[in-house]
Structure formats: structure tokens, C-alpha cells
């Protein structure tokens, strides 16, 4: 199977379980291809955990899950050194972060201290405890979920931390037909366990490499810059997009082009990832008439 067939197979299989959510699946896969981390912001029970699980299974990643609570400590994530009497030394016991795919459920329930421990690991791809640096496995992904509805007793991620996530997606309710199929069908948890990996993590790493080699033409860079300029020269947003956001946008568009089986990025690829990449990075001014920054950009930035 060539790379495109592999990706299609992943998407097809995932769609068979998470019904009617192809866009969310594609965006998630796109994030993983771009070596980014994913934030899923939605109500409980719409399939956040299922989606994370699915991706882990299909790519054959070593999957770990942490349920974030307000009393979770950094050590609970990263691991801890424990004195062993046999060897008379401290032995480091790896925490759940030492996995290839980490699902951080309800990340906003933990204290900022714990949150930042995770976010640092995400950024550095390594963990330093007691002066020893431990490399995290490769690939390393974090899929964090956030429940926007219950805000009591939560610590919403600050803007600077949100920037660490390549994309922030919403899953939303399924449509009528998908929901009917879901209600009629088998138990999703069981289906999940029966899924066989489509590719190995090593293959996935090579796919990541291929995605980053997708060609970006000067014309597309013009468009990308026009988008960045629009967010900066307009007082619709409190701040414009950062250069890091620009890079994220471009990387995501490359992966999207790869999912779309193209060897070059076209404006549509950029447009497909814009809402997921920019919405959590842009803060709207108080009195603007719209609530979707990505859509605003799509409608108003002329393709040069």
C-alpha cells in the first residue's frame, strides 16, 4: 500500500466506528501527521475519547490515558523516582506520559502546575526529573480534551498554553442517519478493541516525513502571509497570529494536502485547516459581529 492508501484506510476504518465524523477524523490525523498535538473541545459523550482511542489503535501506538482531576500532581503524569532497597538507589518509574499517544482527558480540571508539566513535556518531547533527562518515545502525541460546559472548579488553559496545540477541534453531535446507525449498531468499545492497526508507528513516522516534504509554492506563501497580515492589521482580534501560528498553519496544510493525495499545497488545503488552527489562537475583540475567526478569515482574505 502506498502512503495515500494507508491514510485512506485509516480514515475509512475510523469512520466506520465514529460515524459521520469524517472531518474530525481527518483533522485529527492531519494533526498527527504534522507532529502536532490535538485539543478536542466538546461536551462529554460525543466521542472524544473514542476518537483518541481509535487513532492510537489504527496507528498501532502505545496508548495511555490520564483522567485529569484537581488533585492530580505533576508526578502522576511524568513519573517518580523511588528508592529501591535491593539496588540501594533511586529508580525512576515512568509515568503515563511515556507513551506514544497520551489522552489527557478533561485537561482543564487539573491545576495549572500539573497542566504545565504536561505542556512542557509536549513542547520539549522529553522529561527532566531529578536532574535526569528522559526522552519521550517517538512518535509522541497528546490528545487533550476539554469540556467547555462545566467551568466550575476548572482551570481553563491560558492562551499561551493553547498555542501548544496545533489544532483545536470540535466533534459535535452526529447527524440523524449516523446517530441511527450508532443506536442500531454494536457496542463501540468492543469494536475498538477488535481493531487491528493499519500501519506501524515507524511507517507513520515516514509518513510524517513525507508530509513535511509536500511542496509549497511562493503563490501559496503569499496567501498564507495575507492571512497573517489580515489578522494583524485588523482590530477585530486582540492580537494577530504569531509566526509560530503561521508555521503551524503551513504544516497542517501540507499534511492536509497529503491526506487529499496531492503533492503540492493549494489554497483549499490551507482553508480546510484554518478554523481548526486559528480559532483557539485568536481572541476576538469584545464587540465584533461574528464568533468564528476562521470563517471570517476564509471569507475576507482574497487569494493573491
Amino acid at each position, binding site marked *: 500500500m502506498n502512503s495515500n492508501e494507508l491514510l485512506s484506510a485509516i480514515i475509512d476504518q475510523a469512520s466506520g466506528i465514529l460515524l459521520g465524523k469524517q472531518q474530525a477524523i481527518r483533522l485529527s490525523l492531519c494533526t498527527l501527521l504534522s507532529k502536532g498535538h490535538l485539543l478536542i473541545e466538546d461536551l462529554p459523550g460525543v466521542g472524544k475519547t473514542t476518537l483518541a482511542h481509535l487513532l492510537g489503535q489504527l496507528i498501532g501506538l502505545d496508548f495511555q490515558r490520564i483522567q485529569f482531576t484537581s488533585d492530580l500532581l505533576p508526578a502522576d503524569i511524568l513519573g517518580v523516582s523511588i528508592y529501591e532497597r535491593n539496588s540501594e538507589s533511586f529508580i525512576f518509574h515512568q509515568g503515563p506520559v511515556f507513551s506514544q499517544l497520551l489522552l489527557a482527558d478533561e485537561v482543564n480540571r487539573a491545576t495549572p502546575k500539573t497542566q504545565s508539566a504536561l505542556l512542557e513535556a509536549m513542547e520539549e518531547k522529553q522529561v527532566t526529573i531529578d536532574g535526569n533527562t528522559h526522552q519521550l518515545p517517538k512518535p509522541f502525541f497528546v490528545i487533550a480534551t476539554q469540556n467547555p460546559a462545566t467551568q466550575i472548579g476548572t482551570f481553563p488553559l491560558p492562551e499561551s498554553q493553547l498555542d501548544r496545540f496545533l489544532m483545536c477541534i470540535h466533534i459535535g453531535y452526529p447527524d440523524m442517519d449516523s446517530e441511527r446507525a450508532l443506536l442500531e449498531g454494536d457496542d463501540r468499545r468492543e469494536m475498538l478493541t477488535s481493531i487491528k492497526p493499519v500501519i506501524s508507528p515507524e511507517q507513520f513516522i515516514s509518513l510524517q516525513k513525507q508530509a513535511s516534504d509536500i*511542496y509549497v*509554492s511562493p*503563490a*501559496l506563501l503569499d496567501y498564507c502571509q495575507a492571512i497573517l497580515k489580515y489578522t*494583524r*492589521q*485588523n*482590530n*477585530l482580534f486582540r492580537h494577530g497570529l504569531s509566526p509560530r501560528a503561521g508555521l503551524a498553519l503551513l504544516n497542517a496544510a501540507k499534511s492536509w494536502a497529503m491526506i487529499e493525495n496531492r*503533492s*503540492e*499545497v*493549494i*489554497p*483549499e488545503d490551507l*482553508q480546510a485547516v484554518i478554523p481548526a488552527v486559528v480559532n483557539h489562537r485568536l481572541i476576538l475583540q469584545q*464587540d*465584533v*459581529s461574528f464568533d468564528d475567526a476562521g470563517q471570517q478569515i*476564509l*471569507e*475576507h*482574505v*482574497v*487569494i*493573491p
Partner: protein
Amino acid sequence: MNKSYRKINFRILDKQQHHLLTAFLFLAALPHFFNLSLAISLFFFSILLFRLVTRLLSHREHPRWMNYIFLVTGLVIVVSEYSGVIGKDFGVSLLVAMLSLKILEIKTYRDAYVLLFLTAFMLVTHFLYTQEMFIVFYVFTLTFLMLFLFIWFNQLQEKVSFYHLFLTTGKISLQAIPVMVILFIFFPRLDGPLWGFDQQSGLAVTGISGNISPGSISQLSKSSATAFRVKFDDPDQIPEPELRYWRGPVMVETDGVNWKAEEKPLAAEIRYQSAGKPVSYQITTEASNQHWVFALDLPATIPEQTFITKDYAVRAKEKIQKRISYNFISYPEYLANTTTTEQLDASLSLPGGVTNRMRLFVDTLKRSNHSNEDFVKSVLNHFNTENFVYTLSPPPLTVNPTDEFLFETRKGFCEHYATSFVLLMRIGGIPARVVAGYQGGEWNTAGNHLIVRQSDAHAWSEIWLGDKGWVRVDPTTAVAPERVERSIDPEQFLEGAPVVFKISSEGMFGSFLKQAVFMADALDLNWHRWVVGFSRERQNYFLRSTGLDFLEGYKLGLSSIVLSSLAIIIMVILFRGKITDRRDPAKKLWDKFIRKLNKRGVSCKPADGPQTIAKNAGQMLTEQKSSINLISRMYIQVRYGKRYSPEQLRTLKKLISEF
């Protein structure tokens, strides 16, 4: 989107912007404080001060009812200062007062726009008062500032780079220059002063008038104001200082005290015989509120707007109420041996104030000098050898000025010498008259022109000597020969003291200063010659010399509109050209394709990508779906693909033109 634009307009100005705007308004109104009444200026300042104090002391706006009080105060001041509701001063002071009231309301960007538009209007009103170079420079600077503020207040981002704002303003200003030049050259000139505004001003201009009495010229001589400037066409033909007599009104009639020129002289022909070489030159006179034009003695060729009297004095057909330039040709050497008996008779008539002392004095001289020439010389010799003093501040003369001057005070200025000399000549039977005008002038080494000041005002006499005709005799030279060689220094006169003449040997600093003054003067003259003085005549001359004289009347107006529109179009093309050149050839083709699609009813938004467009178009134009898809794939290949060949571009071009 509309909402967001409105939002931009109602953004609040920050403190820095507010203070800058207020400062700008102050600068824009500043020159008017010299034109308008003190009350208006005080009103403006007090409002400015009030605003500044309230802004500095509290963050809250002052209560709104105070604005009404200010409004009423302003209106009352304007109306009470200028009772007539029509006129330049009333209009301008109303504008200034209202603008100052607007400061009280500055809060949002929208207010700033309104204020800047109004100041643009006020900047123009400065030209109603003066069109001097410095004010033009001032207005230019402020216009630039205004543009700068406009551009600044239209920026969307919060942080602006002043350097870029400056560059943009500069670019826009430079782009305006071609249009400005075209309009300047081609816009039809009106003959009358703009809006008839100049006519209402009662000019308090001093200068030689057709009426002199002892003391009138010496009064004038204390002024260093410029009377006119002379630019000689040929630098080799500049007459010597002693020949620089600028002829004004010729006075024949007298009552013994006052000498009067004819009030409404008629035009006459020039009938004198010229000798020597002609001198051609251009005179640029300052506004004098008089008709007299002071040509070099004696004028031969005069400009159209003037005529010459039978005494060879030049008069403008209209009163000179602004700077005007005239071209003349004169002969400094001449033989004016034609006259009429009426002229001679009038030049012999004696006023009532001739005393026995005067007759006795003339008889004594006549007895010893038989010829007229000798008699003239003896009178001049009398002025020279007796204790006569040339002074700017002669003692007051009461009943019979000539008599008192000749025999008692013996202190006088040129008009005393000229008038008494003429009277003595007439008593002796020689026809004589007084000529008023200017003598000499200062050479401006920077501008290579002559500045004739009011302090150069002079009076001399002309006597009829039969064959020799009218001969100029300047009795002042008998007393103070230096008068015709150097100018009087009006800065250095004392009561009753002899006149101090300007001497050229000054210190280093003095000569530098002088050079600077000359430079400024030269600049001013050229400014008038080329800019302010670009009158209808000069415009016509320019059009004739460039072969464009078929443009007359409305055609000229039309051409100014057409040419400036053309200039704008050319600049737009040049400016756009830069953008289109940068545009991808593939993008150009794609735009063409989109235009074709639009014609077929497919609506494409500029924010749509090629695939989206192809999909939409394919749904609407199902028969052409395959070619649409092919074109969009090709376009994506050419524009966004990695491997690009000119071959592909040609295919795309072919596909689109066939579509």
C-alpha cells in the same frame, strides 16, 4: 463588515493623538491671529487652554451645556467684531471660532476626520490675506501634516510606524505634484482679484502720490519698505546710479505749498528724441493703491496695461492693488524738445506765495548771469555754497514754506529743494516743473536685480531750455551730491541731523547679513515673477510661446481638467503597473478564466480557491465540467505545483482562451 467600519470611526483617540490634533489646529490657525481681531484670537486661545486643562486635570469630559455657552460667546464675538455679515474677515473669523469650538468635541476618530477636513478649508483661507512665499511654505507644511494625521487616523492596526506613515504621506504628496503643476499652468486666470476680496481692504500703503508738499517725501524716506524691484534684461546695460531716475507724477500746478499732478491725465504720444542705447527691464511693483508706475527716465516702450501722459509719466489703467510686473524699454539719455504752449504757460504760472525777497534774489542773480544756463548754475551754486542742509527731519514750515525754507531755515529734503528751485526758475522766466519718483535703488547681488525702496523716494525738477528741451535738474545734488550715488539709510537718521547715507564697507557679519537679506529679496521677486504673478498675461505669453495659444477661454478650462485627469490616470497606471507586473502570469490567466465564468453566471468570490471555483462552476455548467476541471488542475499545477514548465503555462493559456 459595515459594523466593523463604523466601529473604526468611533474608536476613541488616545491622548497623544488628541494633543497632536490640537497642536495641529493651533498651527493651522496661527497666521490668522495677525489678520483677525484680538478678541477672536483670545477666544481661540482660551478654548484651547480650557481643553488642555480639562484634559490634563480629569479624565472626564466637561459637561455638555458648557459647549453652548462657548458657542454663544464665539458667535457674539464674531458678530460684534465684524458687524457686516458679508466679507472675508467675518467669514474667516467665523470659521476660526467654529473650529475652536470643534476642539471641545474631539473624542473619536470620526471627530478627527471632520476637524481635519475643516482645517483643510481653513488652510486655504490664509491665501485670502497674503500670498507671500513664507505663508505658502507654511501652508504646504501644514498640508503635509494634515495628510500625515489623516493617514495615521486611518490605520487599522494599533501600533503604527511613524517612518512608514511619513513615507506614505511623502509619496502621496509627490504624486500630487504633476496635477498641481498642470492646474497651475492651465487653469484659467481671472482678471479680478479672487472673490473681489481685495477690494474691501482700505490699503494703508505709502508711496509717491500725485500730490507733494514739503515734508511728504521726507516722511516717506523713513520707510525701508520696497516700492518696486527692477530686473534688467541685459546685465551690461544697467544705467549708472546717477542716471537711475524712476519717473513718477509730474507736477505743474501749485498753490505755493502743495504741488499737484493732473488728477485724470490723458494718454499722449511719445515724441521725444532718443539718444544713446535703450535699456529694457522688468519692473515688479508692490501694491501702492495708486496708478503711477515708475519707469526709468524716459520710457519709450510701455506695457499694454499702462499709458503715458504728455509729461511722460506712466500710469496704470487700474489702480495697482497687488504686485504686478511690467516690461519697459527706456532711454536714459534723451532730447525731449517738443512741448506745447499750454504746457509752457502752465509751467510758468506763479502761485500767490511769491514774496519780494524771492523776486529780489532772482533779479540779483539774473543781472549777473545773462544766459538761462548760467542762471540755473548760479541758483544751484547758491544751494551749494550757502549754508543749506540736506535733512530728513526739516524744521516745520508754516505760512510760506518756500520763502521760509530759502531764507530762514535752509534745512530741507529733496522736495524742498525741488519745489523752491522750480519756483525760482519760474520767477526767472524759465518754464519749470517738479517730477516726483524714486532715485537710485540698491543692487541685490544675490538676485541680480535692483531694489527700490520707499526711502529712495525723490523729487527733482525739469526746466525748459529751448533747444535742449526739457532738462532734468536735480537741485538736491547741489546740496548733497552723494544722494544720487548712494541710498539713504533710513535706520540712521536723527532729528534735524544731516542724512546718513548707506556705505558699502561693512564688517564681515554685516556683509553676510546683507547677503542673506538680498537672497531673501531675490527669492521673493522670483516667487512673484513665476508663481503669484503668473497672471492672465503671463499665461497667454506662455501659451503663445509654446504654440498652445489656440486654448482660449473655456477651452483652457477644459484642457486643465483633461490634462490633470490624464496625469491622474497615468499615475494610476504607473502605480498599478507595479502590482500587475508582480502578478503571476498564471494568475492573470486564471483571472481571465474567472471573468469568463462570471459572464456565464458562475459567481466566484475572491476568497475562493481554484478547486472550490471549479467545483461550483462544474455544478452550474455541467457540459463543460471536464474542461473546467482540466483548467483548474492545470492552473494548480502551474501556480502551486513543484514542477513548472513554460509548456504548461502555454497549455493553460490555450485552454482558457478556448473555453
